């Protein structure tokens, strides 16, 4: 299994590598379009800021590479947000794989949301074996709206997309690599797609 993690100017890659190791997968990190395109599975992780991330991605032509991928792709956290149409974080156009808008949480609750929240209305093979209202670990200030591609919902001041799926593209706002056994099951599901 050739799993490639897209390298760009966002953190958190190490945690994803270690989580994959725990389920027996040795992943490669690369920003080389050919290496990414030839992978069996591609992971697009990231903790960071949307505008500087999009700038970096566009400068290296990674935007076209990601959008043209045919194999299963998993965006995590900022990766999910960058796969949406637009982000309020720096008012930036993103990859547009999902039609969602990414917005800042209203200050009714503490921002960022940090901690374990439950996910519900689960519907996707990548969530097979995951019970309704399982807890996963979130750290984010911006959220993707709910929509037709939503495959898991979470609630923080409102319902929003905890996970998205369209064609070969999957994305999780929470961190499966930090969500204990539940998260490892999701990563296993993705690898087995």
């Amino acid at each position: 299994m050739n799993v490639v993690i897209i390298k760009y100017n966002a953190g958190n890659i190490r945690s994803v590598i270690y989580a994959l190791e725990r389920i027996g997968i040795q992943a490669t990190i690369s920003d080389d379009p050919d290496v990414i395109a030839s992978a069996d599975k591609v992971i697009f992780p990231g903790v960071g800021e949307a505008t500087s991330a999009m700038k970096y991605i566009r400068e290296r032509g990674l935007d076209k590479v990601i959008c043209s991928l045919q194999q299963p792709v998993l965006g995590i956290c900022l990766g999910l947000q960058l796969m949406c149409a637009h982000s309020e974080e720096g008012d930036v156009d993103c990859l547009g794989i999902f039609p969602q808008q990414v917005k800042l949480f209203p200050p009714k609750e503490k921002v960022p949301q940090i901690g374990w929240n439950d996910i519900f209305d689960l519907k996707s093979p990548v969530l097979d074996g995951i019970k309704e209202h399982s807890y996963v670990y979130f750290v984010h200030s911006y959220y993707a709206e709910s929509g037709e591609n939503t495959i898991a919902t979470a609630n923080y001041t409102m319902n929003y997309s905890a996970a998205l799926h369209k064609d070969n593209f999957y994305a999780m706002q929470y961190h499966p690599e930090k969500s204990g056994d539940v998260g490892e099951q999701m990563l296993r599901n993705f690898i087995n797609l």
Partner: protein
Amino acid sequence: MLTKRIIPCLDVKDGQTVKGINFLNIQSVGDAVELGALYAQMGADELVFLDITATHEKRKTLSELVTRIAKHINIPFTVGGGISSVEDVSVLLNCGADKISVNSAAVRNPQLIHDLASQFGSQCVVLAVDTKFENGDWYVYLNGGRIATPIKTMDWVKEAVNLGAGEILLTSMNHDGTKDGFALDITRAVSEAVNVPIIASGGAGKMEHFTDVFKQGKADAALAASIFHYKEIDISDLKTFLRNEGVEVRL
């Protein structure tokens, strides 16, 4: 619903866990990674590793330890203790730490918080504050509680959040090690004053103390060390207790 977090704190020295009572009298209690993994299995929501190694080998031993933790533990963890530069933080995050906590260095150089937040994001910048109530107000202490400052805790927390701190780890020195309960008043005051999560620390002795700090203290998370290390309170029992008390927790 977002749940309240239970966070065991592991003080580490040369890769081994230790716990100081009132910041003194250190007793060794075991391997940091092993203990951390055990807590994760028992239902801990996060872990904090506080490095108190004082030797010049510190950087190397700490980055090795963080790598080992990141490989073996599947829940988030924070690393703190003597972190004073962007370079220190960069190394630790690259080793796999999810968050870092800064304390004395940030008081001496508040710009550090801004630099860390703009480079790595507020979500990984935890401001640790050791606070003590004396002469009618809460003041900030430095160097593990050894050095007093004239800085009022509320002022410092507000400034730090404006600079980009993403979370506040508030330790009451009056309560730490006493097992008489958390400092509910300052915890609540800080939680209501800033719009970032507050981790309450210092004073946990009974399960009821956690209920109090979540309900009355309005904490988002509670941190404790010795009661978990010495198995006085089992984390899974604590979380069941809290749920029965009407506190949302992950079970």
